[in-house]
């Protein structure tokens, strides 16, 4: 039995080690190695931080980097603010069939490719689009209005695309809050605001944190929405990575950009976890 257990353990851990080793850990190490080499001739390289210097030496890169981070944080906050009341409604107010129906309705849009969703917003927002036509028809505008290719359009797209990943963890955590705990809050003299502040939000914290982390990650790493809704000058950091890799074929600089993005996301995720006293395991696992 002892030997059997050992064999079983080896059989079970091998796929895990292969997966994490070959597809996650080693590729990132390799990418780091590529990012710290500098091409000095045809097929000749030396180790240096030239690529990172290039990043810090070019204001456009830094501006894009900071802008991407700020926009992603803003998108996360907006998604949370819009999604929280809806999640509360589904988790605590809707009952029975209505509850499951609303929950499913929340999920449906996200089984559809992000491309389709973005396409939908393009049809709505562009100059010849539905909203522009509606504004002209209703007399609110006297000529076609271009609503694509600006930051608001990017924000609408990001919030829309990420909504599910905020609402579902919120619903899950808030469903586990017993009604009687909320009633006890009122019974002891609390009102809506204090019950929300002292009972509902602290209880929903793991959901808020995990939802926020996922939404932030998805926004930061998004390529499709900024390109399609923000246009060519949307200044999104993933576009820089894409163009270094695919258009300019400068993998060294691209890898350095990739690492900056990874660094940024890790710092913000780690900071959020520390700030709220959660762990990756408690929020994601």
């Amino acid at each position, binding site marked *: 039995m002892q030997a059997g257990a050992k064999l079983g353990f080896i059989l079970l851990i091998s796929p895990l080690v292969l997966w994490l080793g070959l597809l996650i850990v080693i590729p990132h190490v390799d990418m780091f190695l590529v990012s710290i080499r500098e091409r000095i001739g045809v097929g000749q390289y030396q180790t240096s931080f030239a690529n990172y210097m290039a990043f810090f030496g070019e204001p456009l890169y830094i501006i894009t980097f900071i802008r991407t981070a700020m926009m992603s944080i803003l998108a996360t906050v907006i998604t949370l603010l819009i999604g929280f009341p809806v999640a509360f409604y589904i988790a605590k107010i809707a009952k029975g069939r209505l509850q499951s129906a609303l929950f499913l309705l929340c999920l449906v849009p996200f089984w*559809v490719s992000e491309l389709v969703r973005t396409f939908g917003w393009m*049809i709505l927002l562009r100059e010849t689009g539905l909203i522009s036509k509606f504004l002209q028809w209703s007399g609110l505008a006297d000529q076609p209005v271009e609503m694509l290719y600006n930051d608001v359009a990017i924000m609408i797209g990001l919030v829309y695309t990420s909504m599910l990943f905020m609402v579902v963890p919120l619903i899950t955590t808030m469903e586990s809050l017993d009604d009687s705990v909320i009633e006890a809050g009122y019974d002891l003299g609390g009102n*809506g605001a204090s019950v929300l502040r002292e009972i509902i939000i602290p209880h929903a914290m793991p959901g808020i944190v995990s939802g926020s982390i996922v939404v932030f990650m998805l926004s930061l790493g998004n390529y499709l929405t900024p390109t399609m809704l923000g246009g060519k000058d949307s200044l999104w950091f993933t576009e820089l990575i894409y163009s270094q890799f695919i258009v300019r074929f400068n993998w060294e600089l691209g890898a350095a950009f990739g690492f900056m993005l990874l660094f940024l996301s890790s710092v913000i995720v780690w900071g959020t976890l520390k700030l709220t006293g959660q762990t990756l395991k408690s929020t994601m696992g």
Partner: protein
Amino acid sequence: MIPSIHQPRPIRIAYRAYVVLFFLYLALPLAVVSVFAFNDSQFPSLPWEGFTWAWFFGSERPMIGVFHERPILRALGNSGFIAVFVSLLSVVVGTTNAFLFNRYDFRLKGLFYVLMLLPLVIPGIVLGISILVFSSTVANAVWDSANVEIEALRPGITLVILGQFSFITTIVTLVIAARLQKFDRTLEEAALNLGADRLTAVRTVTIPYLAPALIGGFVVAFLMSFENFNTTLMLVGSDAPLTIAMFDRLKEGSTPLLNAVSLLLMIGSSLLALVMILFQRKS
């Protein structure tokens, strides 16, 4: 607040209106995409030129429908092929992972668990380029030492599968582990007590119990693979899957053909999700 806490009527109505608005916001882009799939025009926008099925079944220029548009059909085939592979792989590895973390205590278990979660917090595009860089390193090394070109390590379907598998496995592992966590291990002991050996006990008792999660994991993996964009974008070769093919078209300008494809995708994924829900309700 909750129903037992009485709220003034205007507040309740405002709250309900907000929820309705929210769902309108969710539905609007999808509804618009669907409706314009039937517009008898070259552009998916107003004015409405009349109803047509041509964007589905048309076979003559300029209105070639989805079912006669070879590149789109080929891309759909590629997507299906990739999705099936990714789902199978990630369900298998997800199952072994779930058993490993549920049944064994080993050194560095905590570290492995966090590593396992990591793909969720790595931007998809970074996952893509890291795999691209590493596979090229390996392919170049093989070429330099043995003069053999390994086609699979260059951008193409194999890399797309590996790239999607690298993070979808985490999600499938979580789905399966959640159900395994709820499994009552005395059931397995009862099977052993009744004469089954350990493997038979797992096969006849535990795996059937896990079936809804295995199927759920498969469907989730399938849908995630089908709609993945970021990781795929960095690893794609000449055999583009559907999302990439549509993206390329969209950059050139859109026709209602794309609406028709989108509508079919929506119907397909809704059906798949429905099947999964029905299956899980039954068990």
